[in-house]
């Protein structure tokens, strides 16, 4: 207790020391950077998840191929969550002479809990509604056309007559691109009474929940620790379509990377300030030791001072980060209109914990070594300056950095790449700095006095210069990494959904309609027309053995065996498909060939050379597997698991599926087209595209905000790191002024010194960021063909030199403007 009081008193007396202030400021900055980023990230992730929840109709859910045990609903009720039950299944609807297979979703009237169910009436007006009441059904446009029905008519579903209460315009559909079968929404009780959900039905039952985020999280934790029924799975916003998930994953990784690099930057600044503080305290510690203070007591005193500094600084950091996060949210929240998000305090508190860990990790080694100062040093200062070549204590900051990378990156690959890149940069920067300093010392004697003075100053403070160059290189690498990856990431997202992405799909196009339909489309201004043949059949055998007699490990096969299979064919490999094994079809293959997507290959354990049998219409077709394809399902194109060779597949009974882009506002013309070709089903995916674009826009906005804050934090920490050597120069500049050096000379000398320092840092950082950025971009953010351009990086290296020079000059300005007399007296 006594020692703590002593430490606090010492802290109060030493508070004027710039190193202590830098230490405190670095900690505040670290906590603010981590806290703001973490708070904003938490809020934006919440916002992003909330918009994903709109796609699944609830915050969270659980589904299974049979009725769900009541405990799932009970657990939700206990937590005060709103609930809706649904069941999805295929069923045939009848209307007079017509019949049509529909994809039916039976729901209670609470559906959907999140997102919008858009219903059209007989007059074409649209309203937002809920699941249909008993005795009614909602049919989508295709179902209405196929069954020749209109709103207000009735259809028979599961043996019951149901009145069509409206047209199903839009429903929370998990972000599915285009449902192949027409859709219907009916009442859950009706489905039950009609026996559609009984034993042997292929219905998938779900419970969806929504409510207070903490209650939802609590239910999620409970459900994750509860055994699910056979075939059951949790429905989470993260599981919405692949293309959304990609954006979330990459955005999350990027936000974490940004926070992590900010924390490491602060660590670098803290390490520099602590080193300086330890040097300043050396004579005091040797005096204390000489006066009989034990090493343990000295250490306690130093740690007490550090603790006394850390706690209020961390508290200020937390308050500032909360205030800044709230202010930033006021600007950013428009991106998440309608998403309620309370200010989370946990990320800021966690940031304070991390900040204190960074402070301890980076500041401890010099302070612990300080306690080792010999009492004899009181007589001979040189004894206090003995530096160990290798000090195991300096593994602590490395370990803290690794722990931070590990805890924040959430990905072994990201952590590995960062650790390797940053260590590489540190080693190269230190080596390059040592080499350039060695060269500078030898080539400068003939140069301008200012240049010689600057170089000499750097070379004489060799150790500090190398530490500074390394620290600056690491800081710049962090900033450049973000600067390289962010635009490529944002561009990548934008490129995934260019403005002319096909926004309409046409199903059921017949062979003889193709030419005329294409012409008509061109006349109304449609573009990007792409047609693919479509045959519907069943997959029945592998190498002559019926698939229902083969035991597959993958449980999904059971589901797929029952489904209708869609086959297509093409002369050339479609875009967004890549052959990963085997070869694409030769022009005239002797026997039928099939190219298989990797998911099907894995599901059915297929090998090249296997023969797959398909029943299509009345006939049967055996096709040899000649290639496996990787399909990019995130592209907005029509893709198929199975592609046949055209020579053999052309004879199969088929229709055509087409996609095209039609600028908005042409729907009238399209309606005319629809009347000319009444058999066609036209599907508008603009709404879905809009939702995906909106989410991408939200994610992009989130990244920009967080990036802006991190860059600012990075720049501030960088400036703090530079300032730590300011004191070192003060005495030197004062003496040089006394000896008659002009201000201009000192300024140019400082400019040369800082420019060289900046150049070393810039070159190393540019190289490090180029290699690290390339690596991160390719293997963590999956940016296609990513290659950072060297010229902007070279420019950035030069710019870094200029910025470091200017910051350095700004730091020495005060020194060169103070009368030398006052400086000497202040020493």
């Amino acid at each position: 207790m006594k020692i703590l009081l002593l430490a606090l008193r010492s802290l109060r007396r030493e508070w004027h020391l710039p190193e202590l202030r830098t230490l405190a400021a670095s900690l505040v900055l670290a906590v603010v950077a981590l806290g703001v980023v973490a708070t904003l990230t938490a809020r934006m992730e919440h916002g992003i998840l909330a918009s994903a929840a709109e796609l699944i109709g609830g915050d969270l859910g659980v589904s299974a191929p049979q009725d769900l045990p009541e405990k799932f609903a009970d657990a939700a009720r206990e937590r005060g969550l709103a609930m809706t039950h649904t069941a999805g299944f295929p069923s045939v609807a009848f209307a007079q002479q017509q019949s049509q297979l529909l994809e039916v979703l039976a729901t209670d009237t609470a559906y959907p809990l999140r997102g919008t169910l858009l219903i059209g009436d007989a007059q074409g007006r649209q309203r937002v509604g809920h699941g249909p009441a008993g005795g009614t059904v909602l049919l989508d446009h295709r179902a209405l056309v196929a069954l020749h029905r209109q709103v207000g008519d009735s259809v028979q579903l599961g043996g019951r007559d149901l009145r069509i209460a409206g047209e199903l315009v839009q429903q929370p559909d998990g972000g599915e691109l285009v449902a192949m079968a027409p859709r219907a929404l009916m009442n859950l009780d009706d489905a039950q009474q009609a026996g559609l959900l009984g034993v042997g039905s292929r219905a998938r039952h779900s419970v969806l929940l929504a409510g207070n985020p903490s209650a939802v999280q609590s239910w999620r934790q409970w459900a994750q620790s509860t055994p699910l029924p056979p075939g059951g799975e949790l429905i989470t916003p993260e599981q919405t379509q692949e293309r959304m998930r990609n954006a979330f994953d990459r955005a999350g990784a990027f936000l974490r990377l940004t926070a992590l690099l900010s924390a490491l930057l602060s660590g670098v600044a803290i390490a520099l300030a602590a080193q300086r503080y330890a040097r300043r305290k050396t004579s005091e510690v040797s005096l204390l030791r000489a006066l009989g203070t034990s090493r343990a007591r000295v250490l306690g005193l130093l740690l007490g001072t550090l603790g006394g500094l850390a706690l209020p600084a961390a508290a200020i950091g937390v308050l500032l980060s909360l205030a800044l996060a709230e202010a930033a949210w006021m600007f950013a929240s428009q991106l998440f209109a309608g998403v309620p998000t309370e200010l989370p305090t946990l990320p800021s508190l966690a940031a304070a914990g991390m900040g204190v860990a960074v402070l301890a990790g980076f500041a401890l080694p010099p302070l612990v070594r300080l306690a080792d100062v010999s009492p004899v040093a009181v007589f001979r200062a040189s004894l206090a300056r003995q530096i160990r070549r290798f000090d195991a204590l300096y593994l602590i900051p490395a370990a803290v950095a690794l722990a931070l990378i590990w805890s924040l990156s959430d990905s072994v690959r990201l952590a590995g790449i960062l650790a390797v890149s940053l260590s590489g940069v540190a080693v190269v920067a230190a080596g390059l700095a040592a080499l350039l300093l060695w060269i500078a010392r030898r080539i400068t004697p003939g140069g301008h006095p200012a240049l010689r003075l600057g170089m000499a100053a750097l070379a004489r403070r060799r150790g500090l210069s190398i530490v500074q160059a390394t620290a600056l290189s690491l800081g710049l690498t962090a900033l450049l990494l973000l600067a390289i990856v962010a635009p490529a990431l944002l561009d990548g997202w934008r490129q995934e959904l260019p403005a002319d992405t096909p926004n309409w799909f046409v199903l059921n196009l017949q062979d003889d309609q193709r030419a005329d339909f294409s012409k008509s489309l061109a006349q109304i201004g449609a573009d990007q027309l792409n047609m693919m043949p479509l045959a519907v059949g069943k997959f029945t055998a592998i190498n002559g053995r019926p698939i229902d007699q083969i035991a597959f490990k993958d449980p999904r096969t059971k589901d797929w065996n029952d489904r209708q299979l869609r086959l297509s064919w093409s002369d050339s490999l479609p875009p967004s498909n890549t052959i990963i094994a085997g070869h694409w079809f030769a022009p005239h293959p002797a026997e039928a060939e099939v190219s298989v997507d990797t998911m099907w290959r894995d599901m059915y354990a297929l090998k090249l050379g296997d023969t797959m049998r398909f029943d299509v219409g009345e006939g049967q077709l055996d096709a040899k597997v000649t290639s496996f394809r990787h399909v990019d399902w995130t592209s907005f194109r029509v893709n198929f698991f199975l592609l046949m060779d055209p020579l053999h597949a052309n004879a199969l009974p088929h229709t055509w599926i087409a996609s095209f882009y039609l600028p908005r506002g042409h729907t009238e013309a399209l309606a005319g087209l629809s009347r000319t070709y009444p058999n066609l089903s036209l599907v508008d995916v603009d709404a879905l595209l809009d939702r995906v674009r909106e989410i991408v826009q939200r994610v992009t906005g989130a990244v920009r905000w967080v990036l802006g804050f991190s860059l600012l934090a990075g720049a501030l920490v960088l400036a703090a790191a530079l300032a730590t050597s300011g004191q070192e120069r003060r005495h030197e500049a004062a003496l040089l002024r006394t000896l008659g050096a002009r201000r201009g000379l000192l300024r140019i000398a400082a400019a040369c010194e800082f420019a060289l320092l900046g150049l070393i840092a810039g070159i190393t950082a540019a190289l490090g960021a180029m290699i690290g950025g390339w690596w991160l971009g390719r293997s963590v953010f999956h940016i296609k063909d990513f290659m950072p351009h060297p010229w902007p990086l070279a420019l950035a290296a030069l710019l870094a030199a200029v910025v470091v020079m200017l910051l350095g000059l700004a730091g020495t300005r005060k020194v060169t403007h103070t009368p030398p007399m006052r400086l000497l007296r202040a020493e």
Partner: protein
Amino acid sequence: MQVNTGESFAIVGASGSGKTTLLGLLAGLDTPTRGSIRLDGHSLEQLDEEARADLRRRLVGFVFQSFHLLPALTAEQNVMLPLELEGNPAARERAREALAAVELSGRRKHYPAQLSGGEQQRVAIARAFVHRPRILFADEPTGNLDRRTGRHVCDLLFALNRDHGTTLVLVTHDLQLAERCVRRVELQEGKLEPLA
């Protein structure tokens, strides 16, 4: 008060009497609020800080009580400083000569922390005369040294004064040291009184 070329001049006085302030004014480190100071014909109060710095570089050498050697530089590098400021290409050779003159050739690669107090002050003297200043200001040059070392340092200062005709202005409270100067004044309550 006037100090003539080649003269040795001592300013004595009690602690806090303003000796160092006066020295700073004489050397052009600061400017007087009232009155006038002329150094080699230049009115210091009419020159700006830059011009005074030029004048110091050309004419003035300094020796301080606490040596003011730069800790990161070796003895030789410390001595080279004034010549580097002039852009003198022979700085290293001249610095070595100066160190030899104060009998520290063997310590030129040592850092200040590795030198004794007397050695540090001799390095400071070498730095003070390496660029052949016309006037040398010394602020309590023996204040941090033992009597014998102090005497040795003073011998060096007076040898410079004698051999090179360098004007020596020193501030001290050591009357024995002051007595070695040709002229002596005492600063008392802001007034200079000649000492017998």
